[in-house]
């Protein structure tokens, strides 16, 4: 594809970057990214990926916009209350950048639809708020050989890693869901809104780096930050031979919906 004059101007600050250039911008315009959840992480990720000109954005979320979302889910505005989140997000994306095609799916990402939804995308962003969804995204992406960005936030903390096929996955660190009785609810834990923004934009940057094929992704590394101290820390990890989904003898060979009413766990 060739960029028209308006696109050259719109994306000029990308094009100026040696690692992006016209060819990188063309890759972005041809890319397809799926964002699972349009909440605290998915909202900033969707805004930046839309502005960047990602050709197709898939957004899946079964929720409606709630008053308590507006403190951090920056793609949803006050007049959007009670509107389906994917509809609200789709409208904003269209306003930011008409180059972007949006596939809005008002549904939950579950074992029965995961593989079918994933198959059309180049990269997946986990913007979900619960462990069943996070493990499902990991397992589905490993099985479908799709790269994805994991993100988790809590209070003032965040963690993120990027999986690409053949490299370590989320289960290589966290082998299985934590016991549900150990897990406080989302509303109990709380989150500083800006921290969800910090993490969601890291995830968007990982997606863009993957698309243009430049830099070092957060593969085999878990990046963690404590925004209260504003300290970032990285732990390198390796593929685990005994990993239940990507190890030498995987025991998880089909997708499953786990049941757990969760949000976070972090012991202080």
């Amino acid at each position, binding site marked *: 594809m060739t960029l028209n004059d308006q696109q050259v101007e719109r994306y000029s600050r990308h094009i100026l970057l040696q690692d992006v250039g016209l060819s990188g911008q063309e890759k972005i315009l041809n890319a397809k990214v799926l964002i699972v959840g349009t909440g605290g992480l998915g909202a900033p990720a969707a805004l930046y990926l839309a502005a960047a000109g990602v050709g197709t954005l898939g957004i899946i979320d079964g929720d409606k916009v709630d008053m308590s979302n507006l403190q951090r889910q920056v793609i949803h505005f006050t007049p959007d209350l009670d509107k389906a989140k994917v509809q609200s997000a789709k409208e904003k994306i269209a306003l930011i950048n008409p180059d972007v095609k949006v596939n809005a799916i008002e549904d939950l990402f579950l074992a029965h639809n995961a593989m079918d939804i994933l198959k059309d995308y180049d990269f997946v962003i986990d913007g979900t708020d619960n462990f069943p969804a996070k493990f499902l995204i990991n397992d589905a992406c490993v099985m479908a050989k799709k790269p994805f960005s994991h993100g988790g936030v809590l209070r003032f903390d*965040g*963690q993120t890693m990027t999986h690409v096929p053949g490299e370590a996955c989320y289960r*290589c*660190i966290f082998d299985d869901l*934590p016991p549900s009785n150990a897990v406080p609810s989302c509303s109990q834990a709380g989150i500083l809104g800006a921290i969800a923004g910090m993490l969601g934009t890291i995830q968007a940057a990982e997606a863009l780096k993957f698309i243009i094929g430049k830099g070092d992704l957060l593969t085999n590394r878990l990046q963690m930050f404590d925004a209260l101290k504003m300290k970032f820390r990285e732990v390198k990890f390796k593929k685990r031979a005994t990993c239940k989904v990507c190890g030498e003898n995987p025991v998880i060979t089909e997708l499953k919906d786990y049941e757990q009413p969760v949000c976070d766990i972090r012991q202080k």
Partner: protein
Amino acid sequence: MKITINGEEETIEKDSLTIIELLTHKKVDMPEMVSVEYNGEMLDREKFDTQAVTDGDKVEFLYFMGGGQ
């Protein structure tokens, strides 16, 4: 022994502790809420009871973080 926990060196008045004992020592009372990396390798949960931590070892406690909405 001197060991490194989450990037910080610590002196513990023991020659050796299992991972479970170390988690207790660090007041992590629910080990099921943490994954452990021992000298650069993710440790299977079944080995928390038996893996010994000794002088010079590096241990990372990695916590589940599930928020996002």
